[in-house]
């Protein structure tokens, strides 16, 4: 503010004598005084800030609103030029506005910040009529708009956040005038419908034309219902984009009534949910496929069961008859049967018995793959002792040297594991038959990823490792029946059992030196009482 202009001389509170050019004529000093006092009262009652500023830039007159708004006393305000209260950032614009007033232009709604006594600033909105030529002061009113400014700031902030959120969520927004059914939209809205450039005009009909023909009636119903009820609407539908692509969208809309309660406009959002829909569809499809596969598997299992049932019934019956009638024939012929013929009958009976064993083994093998596993913690020390007890009749006179390490507990089906161990131990007992000093060792190998390696080793006849892959096949034998008894299904069973437990089995052997079978089983978490025993 220019300082070369002369300073006003009035009292601190200022006087109307400097301000009033067109004051009403007074008839007496008394009347004048009373009018003056009344004017002063009104002046101070005004909520807006009113002032007179001299060309020297100092306040010449102020009302009480100034003190209230800026916290300074009138004396403090009079003491410094107005410009010193203006926020430094607003100096330039404020000076420019002041020049305008001087040049004879009215200033309306100019906003700048003025210092508050507490160091903060207040936003003021100014109104000042142009200064006529020859007048050396300015009348001005100002209004504290700090709160409005803050609200505006907040609104702008929340609008920015809303826009960010809509952008991030790829949501388009729209506002529909329900009288004209034309809509204003965000660019994203039009992009969702396949338009990179925002369209000139968009009506409800435009939208409906994009909706998939099969969904159109439902969507229109939803829309009409929402408008009629004046409430909210949410729906999903398919659209045909401008490029012909079929997409899925959801739409939300809310009707806002005017003051008379009529539904005038509808605000809403739209989003492309094609990816989600496709994901949902593929999840549903996968689920259906899984259910179907489970059903097929169950049907296959049922069929297998029925097949096994048939096999065991229908194959065993004729075998029983063969054996039965051989027996009856022997009895009927009595002593008259030549020795040779008697031997033939024995062979027939033996063949029948063997075939019966094969059928039983095969059925048992198929059962191992089918029956549900009953998982529990299995103490292998006990399990092995149980196996030895059941093999007692074969072990009794064999003078076998047993080396059995303390074994861990594993997780698995007790009955199946028992079968596997009994088979492997039984094999060792069987194939050490020719040895004078048979030795069988049961021990533990390395542990890995929750699985423990176990092994059963013997110094029996062993086998050639080049046939190792044949070992686990059904009815595969590396020895003739005359050498060692058996149908050749034992190791197939063992492998099936170990595999069903998530483990592996592999052999190491040498002809004449013996064989070792390694296999892995899931080790059980040590039970507290086991730990105490250690």
């Amino acid at each position: 503010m220019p300082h070369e202009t002369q300073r006003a001389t009035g009292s601190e509170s200022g006087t109307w004598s400097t301000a009033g050019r067109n004051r009403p004529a007074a008839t007496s000093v008394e009347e004048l005084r009373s009018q003056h006092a009344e004017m002063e009262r009104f002046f101070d009652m005004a909520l807006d800030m009113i002032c007179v500023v001299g060309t020297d830039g100092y306040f010449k007159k102020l009302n009480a609103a100034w003190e209230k708004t800026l916290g300074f006393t009138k004396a403090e305000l009079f003491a410094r030029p107005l410009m010193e209260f203006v926020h430094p950032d607003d100096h330039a614009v404020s000076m420019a506005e002041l020049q305008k007033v001087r040049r004879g232009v009215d200033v309306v709604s100019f906003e700048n910040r003025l210092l508050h006594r507490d160091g903060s600033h207040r936003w003021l909105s100014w109104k000042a009529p142009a200064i006529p030529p020859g007048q050396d002061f300015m009348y001005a009113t100002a209004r504290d708009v700090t709160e409005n400014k803050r609200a505006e700031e907040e609104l702008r902030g929340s609008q920015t956040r809303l826009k960010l959120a809509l952008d991030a969520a790829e949501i388009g927004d729209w506002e529909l005038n329900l009288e004209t059914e034309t809509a204003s939209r965000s660019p994203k809205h039009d992009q969702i419908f396949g338009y990179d450039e925002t369209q000139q005009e968009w009506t409800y009909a435009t939208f409906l034309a994009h909706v998939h023909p099969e969904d159109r009636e439902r969507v229109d119903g939803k829309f009409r219902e929402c408008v009629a009820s004046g409430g909210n609407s949410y729906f999903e539908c398919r659209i045909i984009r401008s490029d012909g692509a079929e997409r899925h969208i959801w739409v939300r809309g809310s009707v806002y009534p005017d003051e008379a309660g009529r539904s005038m406009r509808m605000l809403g959002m739209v989003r492309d949910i094609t990816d989600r829909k496709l994901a949902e569809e593929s999840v549903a499809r996968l689920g259906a496929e899984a259910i179907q596969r489970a059903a097929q598997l169950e049907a296959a299992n049922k069929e297998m069961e029925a097949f096994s049932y048939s096999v065991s019934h229908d194959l065993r019956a004729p075998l029983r008859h063969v054996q039965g009638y051989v027996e009856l024939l022997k009895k009927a012929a009595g002593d008259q049967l030549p020795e040779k013929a008697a031997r033939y009958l024995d062979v027939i009976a033996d063949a029948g018995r063997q075939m019966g064993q094969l059928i039983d083994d095969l059925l048992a093998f198929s059962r191992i793959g089918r029956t549900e596993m009953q998982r529990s913690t299995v103490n292998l020390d006990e399990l092995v002792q149980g196996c030895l007890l059941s093999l007692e009749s074969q072990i009794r006179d064999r003078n076998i040297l047993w080396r059995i390490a303390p074994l861990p507990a594993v997780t698995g089906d007790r009955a199946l594991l028992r079968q596997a161990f009994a088979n492997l131990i039984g094999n060792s007992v069987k194939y050490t038959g020719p040895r004078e000093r048979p030795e069988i060792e049961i021990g533990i190998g390395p542990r890995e990823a929750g699985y423990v390696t176990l092994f059963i080793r013997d110094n029996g006849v062993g086998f050639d490792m080049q046939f190792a892959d044949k070992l686990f096949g059904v009815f595969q034998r590396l020895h003739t029946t005359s050498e060692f008894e058996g149908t050749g299904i034992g190791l197939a069973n063992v492998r099936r059992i170990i595999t069903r437990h998530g483990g592996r089995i592999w052999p190491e052997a040498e002809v004449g030196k013996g064989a070792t079978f390694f296999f892995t089983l899931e080790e059980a978490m040590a039970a507290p009482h086991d730990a105490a025993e250690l």
Partner: protein
Amino acid sequence: MNMMTHVRRILLVEDSPQDAELTREALIENNVTNGLDHVSDGAAALDYLHCRGAYANRENGNPTLILLDLKMPKMDGTEVLRQIKGDPKLRTIPVIVMTSSREGPDISHCYELGVNAFVVKPLAFGEFAEAVKTIGVFWVMLNEPPAPMPAAQS
């Protein structure tokens, strides 16, 4: 032996003539000399028990024991068993199911229906004869049946 005046008969329900013959031989071999009546399917078994059709004129009275095969044409053994055990006039007759295998859901199902024993026919005739003998000795000679009832009328 029992003191009953009428002959204690065994009803064999068996579709295979060979099995029927082997069973008969096994019984003879083991001196279970009760009369053996053989029917070859489930429907005939029920006719026999209810004294109807071909059996309208048979000597009245329930058999002492029923040996029942499961796998039979027309009406299978479990259905015959269900009807016998569901009939107040028949259900006290001991029924032994004799079948070829232990495969399938038969065992528990038969017990649910009230079978008195379930026997898998051994393959070897010696063992089979032994099983038939054991059954005969126990159920016909040792076991005391409930008071005799007149045969059920249809």
